[in-house]
């Protein structure tokens, strides 16, 4: 019995995951429609990272099912998942530090176009035009020949986004897209992502600590608490829900005020 998966770019039903005695996720449901910006929030230890790793194939759920773009992804290794039109960024930016910005994009484009078994041509002229388009999109054109490790932190995040977009994803999964940024940079960063994703018609699921960032771009919010969905709904509803304010937002706002200016160690 396949539910009406086609309406959703991402459909998660009853996903559970335990580590020994710790129930990290218990029956989590999530539906994301095309074009949505869905934030997953919750205090530390709520299960956000586990949920993300289950979504992206790093962990296998003990129970439950996940459909991406209508395809059941049970047991898919990450590289197969990606081929369904998924792009993932990481909390700690993952790029190719020893390569130039252009080469970073070429790796992604070669992978996307299945040219990775091509062993005789020189890679240097491969997909340069498309790489430049993607760099334009994220505003990194000026740094095209710079080595990736020497980029500023925010530019590394842009580069990772461009790499991920090379796959022409329908669904973006962003793990803490503003992690490690100063408070004042975060809004600008997420708005850039939002603008690019909207322009390309890409749906997006992201985890985030900073409530200002969440409220700025999300259309819907899922609140995780101790591995369970505490509440789920339109951003405005969740924001005003007394339960959420009591359990999560209250402590988070305090915690955030305490952490402004501090370096995140994650």
């Amino acid at each position, binding site marked *: 019995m396949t539910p009406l998966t086609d309406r959703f770019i991402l459909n998660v039903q009853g996903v559970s995951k335990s580590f020994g005695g710790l129930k990290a996720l218990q029956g989590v449901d999530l539906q994301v429609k095309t074009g949505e910006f869905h934030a997953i929030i919750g205090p530390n230890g709520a299960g956000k990272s586990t949920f993300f790793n289950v979504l992206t194939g790093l962990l296998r759920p003990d129970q439950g099912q996940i459909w991406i773009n209508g395809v059941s992804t049970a047991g898919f290794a990450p590289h197969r998942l990606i081929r369904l039109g998924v792009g*993932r960024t990481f909390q700690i930016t*993952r790029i190719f530090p020893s390569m130039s910005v252009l080469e970073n994009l070429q*790796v992604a484009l070669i992978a996307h176009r299945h040219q*990775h078994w091509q*062993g005789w041509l*020189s*890679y240097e002229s491969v997909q340069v035009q498309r790489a430049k388009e993607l760099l334009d999109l994220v505003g990194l054109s000026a740094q095209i020949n710079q080595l990736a490790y020497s980029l500023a932190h925010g530019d590394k995040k842009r580069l990772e986004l461009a*790499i991920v977009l*090379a796959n022409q994803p329908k669904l973006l999964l962003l793990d803490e897209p503003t992690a490690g940024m100063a408070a004042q940079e975060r809004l600008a960063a997420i708005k850039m992502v939002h603008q690019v994703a909207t322009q390309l018609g890409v749906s997006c699921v992201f985890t985030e600590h900073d409530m200002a960032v969440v409220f700025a771009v999300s259309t819907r919010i899922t609140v995780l608490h101790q591995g369970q969905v505490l509440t789920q709904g339109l951003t405005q509803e969740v924001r005003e829900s007394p339960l959420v304010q009591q359990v999560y937002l209250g402590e988070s706002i305090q915690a955030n005020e305490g952490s402004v200016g501090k370096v995140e160690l994650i």
Partner: protein
Amino acid sequence: MKIKRLWFLFTLAFLVFIPWMLSDFWLYIAIEVLTFALYALSFNFLLGFGGMLSFGHAAFFGVGAYSAALFFKSSQMGVLSTFALVPLIAMMVSATVAMVVGYFSVRRSGIYFSMLTFAFQMLLYTVALKASWLTGGYDGTMGLKPSGILGQPSGYYFYALAMCVPCIYVLYRLVHSPYGLILRGLKDDPLRVQYLGINVRNHQWIAFIISATFAGLAGALFAFSTGNVFPSWLNWTASATPVLMAVLGGVHSFFGPALGALVYVVMEVIVTGQTQYWPLAMGVIILLLVYLLPMGLVGFFSKVKA
């Protein structure tokens, strides 16, 4: 770009004229340099570009040498047709062995990958040592000197050159191809490559097989130059040789390991001519290398130039 091409042609021309410049003794040393250059380059294809430290590469050098030796011993054909097939046999057998070894080894990364290659090497070493009916056991396989023109130092030199240069060219093209760029990506961040849709294990597996194939050819070419193969060629101490050559020359440049092979072999000849303490000299060289030239000789030269 043009300058690079000129350098290639100049080096190639130089290599072609070597037999007229060297004595027979040094010509055999030149053959050793050639074969070990191919060996070190194939090894560095994995280490320098794929980020995979194989600590059992001597196994493939040895498997190539033994398979070519056995084929040579049993061949009923003339010398020339035998030696037309020798590279193919050596490459095919080492590729086949590498398919099995690589399949299991690439399933682990970092030090665990190295330990797996090490373990398989010890298995193959034991086979070479104990399967006397096949390998000659402890005494090795001897009498591998070809007759006729290939028995001449210059004849064999040209043969080895004709085998090594195309293989090195193939490795060069691979490193600079889309396949090679993905391989470099794996060295930087395998998880990122996987999250771009690449089957990382497959990519590493193929790299492993390619590397072992050329290492096997190098072993075969070296065997007919010395005229024998010994089990010690597969021993774990022998696996340090390509590591040292690659590090000496510079793992970050394509031709670094070839330069490393040249310096290593020539120094070994000079030092062992003076004293029996070659390992001592080697130890000192490595110490100096790590402290003074962490990027290898090529890294040093490009710094001097800049």
